[in-house]
């Protein structure tokens, strides 16, 4: 019998596209399951998908981990740009107590976590890194959950503002910590000074350039036309590629691009970008990828300090929010909901851990142990807590 040459060889070789399809399918299913049956945020389903995938030792699905990195950053960047667009810096001028509140909650969380880490006898430099990564609130989780539940109102607005500002504070402090790290590792003063400067300055300049490019392009397209959105996506992709190539922070560049593209848009040509379905895909990618990266070999040993860290952090944030709640114009009840909503940790910590590990492997490993453990706990607990807060604030629109 002639061989059935037109049939493919067995076993099938699946390329990353198939893996992507399978992962997306599982994520969507688990997301719906979470939403329908457990009344949980969909992103919880996505994170669980990622964690399940990471259990597979190798094989086709393992490809996702390596290959998805750039897609992950692009998706993350889309979300950050979208979040940035929802940030109105003019609000800080109209209500300066918000700035006080945001600085307060970040700083108190930073100090509380720092004090605890010193208590656990971490070296000072590592302490600063851990505290800076812990002090901010995860913007992607905020955006994901509030989009998922159609939230609108004071608490949602403030959550977005605070998570964006917190990310910026953390970024600056991490930049300074890097300078310190170089010093400790006896680098020349040029490197000590120049790397953080390059990192902060470069990311900001890149963000500003992207914002200007978006606005320039949009000036020629009618508001509301979907070509506006497509042009913006093109610029975002370009900015991500540049940030990667130049070794800058995509997080800060894109967040900044979003913020600027809004505040420089004097004629309101730019409708607040709604990337629609695309941003839902981006959410899935970001949280599935986060899930796959959430592996801490030292989960059990680091669990205690991690839980301590989370408690200290929550306490610091809570005090900071309550202190400025009344003057900033919300009731104490809403302040407690805001404090709960600020619990999510930033997935950007993953990028920092990786970056650190690539420069100083030993410190990176120590950082990974505690930060990833805390992140795993928070990725499970925080989204439902945030959803709860938004529901209690009566800001969600759910069927």
């Amino acid at each position, binding site marked *: 019998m002639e061989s059935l040459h037109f049939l493919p060889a067995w076993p099938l070789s699946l390329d990353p596209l198939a893996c992507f399809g399978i992962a997306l399918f599982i994520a969507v299913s688990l997301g719906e399951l979470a939403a329908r049956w457990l009344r949980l945020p969909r992103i919880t389903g996505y994170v669980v998908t990622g964690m399940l995938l990471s259990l597979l030792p190798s094989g086709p699905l393992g490809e996702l981990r390596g290959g998805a990195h750039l897609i992950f950053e692009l998706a993350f960047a889309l979300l950050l740009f979208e979040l940035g667009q*929802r940030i*109105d810096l003019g*609000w800080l001028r*109209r*209500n300066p107590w918000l700035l006080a509140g945001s600085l307060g909650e970040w700083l108190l969380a930073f100090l509380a976590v720092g004090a605890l880490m010193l208590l656990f006898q971490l070296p000072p430099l590592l302490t600063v890194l851990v505290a800076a990564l812990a002090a901010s609130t995860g913007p992607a989780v905020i955006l994901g959950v509030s989009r998922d539940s*159609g939230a*609108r*109102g*004071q608490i949602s*607005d403030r959550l977005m503002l605070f998570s964006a500002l917190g990310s910026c504070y953390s970024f600056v402090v991490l930049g300074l910590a890097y300078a310190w790290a170089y010093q400790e590792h006896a680098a020349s003063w040029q490197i000590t000074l120049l790397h953080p400067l390059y990192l902060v300055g470069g990311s900001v300049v890149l963000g500003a350039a992207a914002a200007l490019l978006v606005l320039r392009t949009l000036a020629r397209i*009618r*508001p*509301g036309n979907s070509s506006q959105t497509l042009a913006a996506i093109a610029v975002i992709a370009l900015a991500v590629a540049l940030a990667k190539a130049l070794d800058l922070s995509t997080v800060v560049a894109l967040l900044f691009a979003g913020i600027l593209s809004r505040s420089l848009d004097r*004629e*309101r*040509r730019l*409708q*607040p970008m709604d990337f629609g379905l695309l941003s839902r895909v981006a959410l899935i990618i970001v949280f599935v990828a986060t899930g796959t990266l959430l592996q801490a070999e030292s989960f059990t040993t680091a669990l205690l300090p991690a839980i301590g860290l989370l408690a200290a952090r929550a306490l610091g944030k809570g005090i900071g929010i309550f202190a400025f709640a009344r003057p*900033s*114009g*919300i*009731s104490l009840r*809403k302040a407690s909901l805001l404090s709960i909503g600020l619990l999510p940790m930033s997935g950007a910590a993953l990028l920092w851990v990786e970056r650190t590990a690539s420069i100083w492997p030993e410190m990176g490993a120590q950082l990974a142990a505690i930060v990833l453990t805390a992140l795993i706990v928070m990725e499970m607990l925080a989204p439902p807590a945030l959803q709860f807060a938004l529901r209690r604030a*009566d*800001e969600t*629109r759910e069927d």
Partner: protein
Amino acid sequence: MSESNLDLEFTQSEALSLGVELELQIVSRLDGDLTQGATELLALIERRPHRGDFKPEMTESMIEVSTGVHRDSNELGAELLSVRDTLVAEADRLNLLICGGGAHPFQHWAERKIFDKPRFHQLNDLYGYLAKQFTVFGQHIHVGCPNGDEAMFLLHGLSRYIPHFIALSAASPYYQGVDTAFDSSRLNAISAFPLSGRAPLVKRWSEFNEYFHNMQSFGVVESMKDFYWDIRPKPEFGTVEIRICDTPLTVQRATALAAYAQTVCRYLLVERPFLIEESLYAVYTYNRFQAARFGFDGNLIDPGSKTITSLRDDFNATLENLAPHAAELGTSTLLQTLQQAASEGNDARWMRDTFARQRSFGDLVWQQAQLWRNSR
């Protein structure tokens, strides 16, 4: 329930005194869509000394402001300006915008949140989607009356001028993201309610009481609040209440509308220009539709002479009749601004022109908010 069988007592108030209520939109600075914020806004305003009264309305995206009682429309205007400034300052702290207009140009009614108060939830249960669709914004003008009989006389007399009030205040050409072709689309949202439109031809307060008790015994209404008429008596305040107007885009227009109401009432009381009889209402819905649809370009059938004129001409002729009364009340300058609006274009015209420039509803709402904030 025992007191519900008592007669509605008409509180005596000074003839031709004035008060105004405005329902305003709370919108997001981000995209100009309606957003919730009434609770926080009211809490902030409560914490500072202010003129005027601030109340929640049906949904979290609305706020109602009202003035005290004034004899002089210019003083009323001054209070409204102060109320406006309070509102805008506190809204700024919450990153909210406040704007006038009879309806939001592109909101989706299904997204509205009912303000947490028993009466509002009750209405929501009773009227279903109508309750949320009722996210429309009106100006109510109260004119004081010494007794109920006079209130009923003014109620019916004013019905002749309802088309003027509609065209002067019209500020809801867009609804749910489309140009409705109406100058005031808000009136169509109100017409869906069972007790909307005109009041029955009842001339004496005692007869009105009878009518009210009848309706109450049928279970049709529980209180006066259940009547959504274009003009209704308000016995607690001792006023006749004109409810037909869209909330205008500026405080000035709101003040001028109140001044117009006051002047027409004086004219009616002093000159008694026509008899109150059912024939007044024969053309009522036709005139009302013409004004809501076409604004001042619409037609008006004069119920007395049975002739068709343009609404603009009829309004200008009315202003001439009112002139001596305006001089007496000190409303001449305010009425002039209305004459200007009638010839140069009302708020609906302004909204259409503004939208035509950028073709963005977000921008339109932004411009509306700027107009509300800055108008002097």
